[in-house]
């Protein structure tokens, strides 16, 4: 099967229906293993048991940026190739990305209160992630504001690509500015500073959450294709009496 075959909505629907049960099972298995490893991980010598919040906060934070990356690639597909499946991928990723960003913000806040003594600080990392969350909401509003899906897709694609500037700002904010948020400790020059006892559960949870995103995204794309078929049939139905008259 070539990429062109996959880009056909009917083929995509057929493939999605076949792989979704397997993806969902793999997601459930990995998240179950990740939760077990997180529950049995030792306490941190400074943070105590609150380190367990890291196992859900960090995957959500990674995904908040990853999903915008996926939307940016799809936005290129919309603007360069004008492919309807790229529009569908863009539109359906936004609410899922918004949910992950919301969870990153709230779990970070709940981790920050006992460790920093505050739920919120207007530092560069926290503020740039809040801006990312607002951009997700803005994109979702834009999709709802324009009736014609292909017109909405082009406007959303431009906004997505402009918003992508925020992703490196989020990533490097802890290096460029003085922030309360700690600098990178997993993907950094010189290797991870995390002990294996924390690193392994974190990576398992990160892969589990990434599979969760893929599962939800493919299922949501399938729904969106069906919604567009409904729209097409409703337009055909509406045009029938006029054709007969």
């Amino acid at each position, binding site marked *: 099967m070539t990429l062109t075959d996959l880009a056909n909505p009917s083929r995509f629907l*057929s493939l999605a229906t076949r792989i979704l049960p397997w993806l969902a099972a793999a997601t459930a298995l990995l998240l179950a293993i990740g939760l077990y490893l997180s529950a049995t991980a030792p306490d941190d010598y400074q943070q105590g048991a609150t380190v367990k919040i890291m196992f859900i906060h960090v995957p959500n934070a990674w995904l908040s940026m990853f999903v915008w990356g996926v939307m940016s690639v799809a936005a290129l597909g919309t603007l360069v190739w004008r492919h309807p499946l790229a529009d569908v991928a863009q539109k359906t990723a936004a609410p899922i990305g918004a949910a992950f960003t919301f969870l990153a913000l709230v779990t970070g806040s709940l*981790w920050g209160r006992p460790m920093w003594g505050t739920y919120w600080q207007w530092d560069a990392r926290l503020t740039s992630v809040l801006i990312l969350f607002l951009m997700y909401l803005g994109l979702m509003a834009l999709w709802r504001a324009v009736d014609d899906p292909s017109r909405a897709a082009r406007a959303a694609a431009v906004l997505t690509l402009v918003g992508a500037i925020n992703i490196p700002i989020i990533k490097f904010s802890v290096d460029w500015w003085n922030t309360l948020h700690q600098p990178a400790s997993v993907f950094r020059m010189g290797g991870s500073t995390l002990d294996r006892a924390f690193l392994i559960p974190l990576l398992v949870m990160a892969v589990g959450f990434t599979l969760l995103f893929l599962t939800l995204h493919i*299922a949501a794309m399938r729904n969106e294709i*069906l919604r567009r078929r409904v729209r097409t049939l409703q337009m*055909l139905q509406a045009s029938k009496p006029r054709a007969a008259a």
Partner: protein
Amino acid sequence: MTPLGPYASFIVTSYALVAAVIAVLIGWVMVDYRRQKARLHDLEASGVTRRSGRSAAKIS
């Protein structure tokens, strides 16, 4: 599993919130799928078909 210590409420709230949001996402996707399939079946039952003649509700 080790005891969660003095900040147990922060840890439990975080995990519960993540579980709740994921449950909402899964529920949204499943309900939406059923709704779209039902709408397609209703439209086809009322005699509206795709130009290709293929069933819009059939996806495999």
